């Protein structure tokens, strides 16, 4: 019953969403070039299914690779900021400033810096856009660790590294995963941004662009839905990891 509810409720919500969409398009009598309706999409998928698979995979792996680098770099940066107040004071304004730059402005900069390296540019953007929340959450998690927690092991003469591995790291995992959920969405946006904006791109973003240039509106909407689907897959991938590694933080509902 519970399992049914877990799957059934969101499924019903999606079906309701599609029905309302179909209904609005039908009531307004919009033609395809204003707004495609869900019933136009299967045809688009059937026609371009191999493109969807290839492009979807490109978008997926570049997002994941960018995110993985962001996790490594963000965690390291967060550790530095968490353990050293000087590093924190020095890096914070820089990081906030960097994060405030609209990432779209970076696309041409990257494109000029690394001409033609489309894969590299895309991964780099996914990384640049997503490491910030990870670094901040790890940094805050470590710097706000209650001294009592540290003292349990420090009183036994444990090294700083042991304390980090056995106490600080696991204790910050829930915050880390909270940040990772934000980061995965950001990385996905970063990937698509480069795919759409840069000429001769690849991935779903480029497929969207080609739909636009060819006036194939059902294709554009089909890409949007595919992106939403991939986004959901990525997000719930993180949720699954969270369940495995930080499931202890989840309190039973009361």
């Amino acid at each position, binding site marked *: 019953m519970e399992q049914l509810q877990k799957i059934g409720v969101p499924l019903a919500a999606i079906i309701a969403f599609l029905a309302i969409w179909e209904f609005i398009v039908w009531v307004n009598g919009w033609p395809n070039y204003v707004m495609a309706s869900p019933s136009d999409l299967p045809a688009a998928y059937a026609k371009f299914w191999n493109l969807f698979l290839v492009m979807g995979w490109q978008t997926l792996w570049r997002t994941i690779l960018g995110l993985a680098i962001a996790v490594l770099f963000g965690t390291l940066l967060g550790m530095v900021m968490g353990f050293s107040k000087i590093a924190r004071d020095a890096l914070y304004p820089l990081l906030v400033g960097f994060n405030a730059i609209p990432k779209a402005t970076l696309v041409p900069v990257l494109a000029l810096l690394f001409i033609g390296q489309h894969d590299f540019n895309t991964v780099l953007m996914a990384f640049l856009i997503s490491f910030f929340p990870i670094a901040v959450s790890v940094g805050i998690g470590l710097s706000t660790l*209650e001294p*009592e*927690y540290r*003292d*349990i*092991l*420090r*009183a*036994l*003469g*444990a090294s700083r590294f*042991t304390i980090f591995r*056995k*106490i600080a790291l*696991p*204790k910050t*995992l829930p915050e880390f995963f909270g940040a990772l959920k934000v980061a995965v969405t950001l990385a996905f946006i970063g990937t698509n941004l480069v795919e759409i904006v840069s000429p001769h791109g690849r991935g779903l973003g480029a497929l969207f662009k080609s739909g636009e240039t060819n006036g194939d509106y059902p294709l554009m909407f089909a890409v949007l839905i595919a992106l939403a689907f991939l986004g959901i897959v990525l997000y719930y991938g993180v949720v699954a990891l969270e369940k495995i590694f*930080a499931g*202890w*933080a989840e*309190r039973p509902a009361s």
Partner: protein
Amino acid sequence: MQNLIDIKGVTHAYKTKHGPLPVLDNLNLAVPEGEFAAVVGPSGCGKSTLTRLVAGLMKPDRGEVWLHGELVKSPRKTVGMAFQNPVMLEWRTILENVILPLEIVAPTMPKAQKEARAVALLEMVGLKGFETKRPSELSGGMRQRASLCRAIVHKPDVLIMDEPFGALDNFTREDLWQTMRDLRAKEPFTCVLITHDLRESVFLGDQVIVLSGRPAHTQYVLNVDLPADRTIDILYEPKAVEMLHLLRDQIRIAQGRDGDIH
């Protein structure tokens, strides 16, 4: 007999925004091997500071702390600590929490052996069957019991406890006093217990040290010559009642209120 814990003329001040805050002033304390010292004193007089100094987590400005005939300069593996707040690692089960010190002190000990030791301790404090539970599934008193097990799992020769039963209700507290007494009978250790409960200090202590108000020095030492296998009832016997009265008066003096008795 050699004093296992010897605190000689310890003086310490915290640096604060408003200048140094003297907390301990020429404090002396000696605990022979296997004995139990209960430390009482007014709130904020420096009791927790004292535990941190004995554990080697901090260095005193002046004076010396000796454990086992060695000058304490940094934390030692042979010390066990229990805090007022039974800090449990939420991501570990109760059993894994109790094992934690062994992972630091005896990293080569086989896992089965570590677990056997922890299981035996948990049974002793009445937590049999809770090994695989998470800390959040236990009551405060049960967590405190588990924290006691963690403090002694590596067989420390010195156990330092900072108001471990402070947050508990009276019945649970008396229960844990008896658990402490039984643990001590099975595995002797030398103990410093900080408490604000005079009955607790008399029930558990071989000596009760009264600290003065801040900055704290040793104001009074009471030898508790009651039998080792005490029951709670003993606290209602004339001898114990007399001690409690005496300690009460000492605390009043420490609080600087000796004028307004009665």
